[in-house]
């Protein structure tokens, strides 16, 4: 029983990482209606920028804010320069573009900061939380920030003009244009916001997994899985999906005899696919009806 509680707690702690990343995934999905394979790498790059700023003597919170601003601008810039010209190209060509971006960002980061791991500070400390050694104050802080971002995103998408316009632009671009939404800039804005949220995710994840160019490779897979499980249209679903994947993966690794430990990730993914077969829009997503 103690092992069970411990694994659930550890799963929640790891799940917070996935949840963070899943939020960024949902953000970009809301803006451009598909997934960005380079998102993890962009988050990693942002984290390196903030690390570099701190190396140059910039205090933590200033580097944090600066990084958010740089990432936001960087996201918009990438969209304007690289993906706006591809707006008319087939979707699959865009996906190839994401893969190219992935390769570029990863390679440039590797050459600039090399592949040895870097320590990344946390503002929350890493002492045990409320006497439980399984969850540290950093992980609690991470969950807190994730929830704050979640509330922020919810309010943004439900109640602000710009948030509504962005959703409209992604879901029904033709109609959105007709009612006067500048869909092209909505997409750029979505890139910027997704990039900034990714930066927050990277900054929160780095103290746990250590900063290096391949830091986000594994995280992104889990982030996608979490977002898809929870429902790509729902920020709340993405966060819940993150925690569920984290906990489930740990329990599968601990309790499925024989192959559980060796096949943690495949088992977790298989479960997600099973869920999707029965709830194709994810646990919290809205069902989509196709019109002919």
């Amino acid at each position, binding site marked *: 029983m103690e092992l069970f509680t411990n694994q659930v707690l550890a799963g929640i702690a790891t799940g917070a990482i996935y949840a963070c990343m899943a939020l960024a995934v949902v953000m970009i999905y809301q803006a451009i209606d598909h997934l960005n394979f380079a998102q993890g790498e962009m988050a990693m790059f942002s984290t390196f920028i903030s690390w570099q700023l701190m190396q140059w003597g910039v205090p933590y919170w200033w580097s944090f804010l600066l990084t958010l601003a740089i990432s936001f601008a960087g996201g918009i810039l990438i969209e304007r320069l690289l993906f706006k010209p591809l707006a008319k190209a087939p979707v699959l060509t865009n996906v190839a573009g994401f893969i190219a971006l992935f390769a570029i960002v990863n390679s440039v980061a590797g050459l600039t900061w090399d592949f040895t791991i870097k320590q990344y500070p946390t503002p929350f400390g*890493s002492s045990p939380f409320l006497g439980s050694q399984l969850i540290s104050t950093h992980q609690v802080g991470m969950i807190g920030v994730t929830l704050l971002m979640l509330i922020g995103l919810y309010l943004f998408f439900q109640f602000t003009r710009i948030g509504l316009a962005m959703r409209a632009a992604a879901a029904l671009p033709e109609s959105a244009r007709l009612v006067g939404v500048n869909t092209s800039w909505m997409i750029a804005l979505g890139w910027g916001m997704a990039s900034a949220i990714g930066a927050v995710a990277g900054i929160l994840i780095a103290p746990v997994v250590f900063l290096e160019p391949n830091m986000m490779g594994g995280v992104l897979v889990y982030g996608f899985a979490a977002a898809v499980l929870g429902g790509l249209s729902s920020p709340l679903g993405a966060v819940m999906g993150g925690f569920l994947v984290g906990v489930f993966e740990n329990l599968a*690794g601990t309790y499925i005899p024989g192959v559980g430990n060796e096949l943690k990730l495949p088992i977790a993914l298989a479960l997600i696919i099973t869920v999707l077969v029965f709830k194709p829009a994810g646990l919290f997503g809205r069902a989509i009806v196709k019109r002919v």
Partner: protein
Amino acid sequence: MSAINLRLGAFAAALALLAATSSGALAQKKYDTGASDTEIKIGNIMPYSGPASAYGVIGKTEEAYFRKINAEGGINGRKINFISYDDAYSPPKTVEQARKLVESDEVLLVFNPLGTPPNTAIQKYLNSKKVPQLFVATGATKWNDPKDFPWTMGWQPNYQSESQIYAKYILKNHPNAKIGILYQNDDYGKDYLKGFKDGLGAKAASMIVLEESYEVSQPTIDSHIVKLKSSGADVFFNITTPKFAAQAIKKNAEIGWKPLHFLNNVSASIGSVMKPAGFENGQDIISSQYFKDPTDAQWKNDAAMKAWNEFLDKYYPEANRADASVMYAYIVSQGLVHVLKACGDDLTRANVMKQAASIKDLELNGLLPGVKVNTSATDFAPLSQLQLIRFKGENWERFGEILSGDVGG
């Protein structure tokens, strides 16, 4: 016309040969493909891109080292032409690149290609072509097999003999230990695991209470550490690469698990593991070494370390000196230079292997005091000595004898 020319040429060559052999004073120059009076072509394959790109720095350091050798006059007057290709750690690509090196670039030998699966993929090919696959960059045990693969030679102490050293230490000092193991689920992790179990012998089954494996794609290994702690193990054998090693050390401290901690040599680096993990979390960890950790302050005034720094300043200034791979590459490049020098003017592939297989007590810059390179016609494992070390304060403290753990392939 061309036939006549050819015959004349052959005649002249025969005359020259006659003159050379009859005079006797002139040393005989013999070359295989890839060597000439002016240059020696060396091939190499590294994962510059892809999942193992962290090791690409080995190829870059080697390239820098051979530039230094060339700037200093080369080897017996010949310049090294170092041709290094990227295989992205994908065995089919390794095969393509190896064939390009042998058939298109026509190198004399393939030096220090990285990784067990890539090397396995090209081993049969290179042996059938009789091209040396010299000093492979992997710690697998199988490279020491001169009978079946006379053209393949290992380099570093192999994983199995290293973990046997830990096993013997545990049997001697902690015979009632309950051991928990965390290992990477690939050829490297499994090789360590096998050596460890062999070392414990009959007691392996009763002493090992839990074996946990992880995949490199996992973001964290927290859940494994939690499980290991609740298994009640009091000895922890940590078979992980630097990132996961640092995570494990940190997580152990966070959850208050304080077993006797054995860390594999792969991650025994102060700069890239112990420091990021936090010095206070890594106290008393036991590991082993065969070369000097450049980030260890005890070597600050060491002559070899100074030479290393000078070399990097001049030829590879952007290198990260905390990266153990840079030191690794520096040492293995010296090994190759030694072999090529020993070949003299007989730069045939057979002679390269012959010289590589007759190294006696060679000391190289960067190796720990007492660690020497030794090979013979039946021993294709150049480095097989290790020194146990324990982490104290901010340094590795060496203890005990230099240990040798030869495990045959």
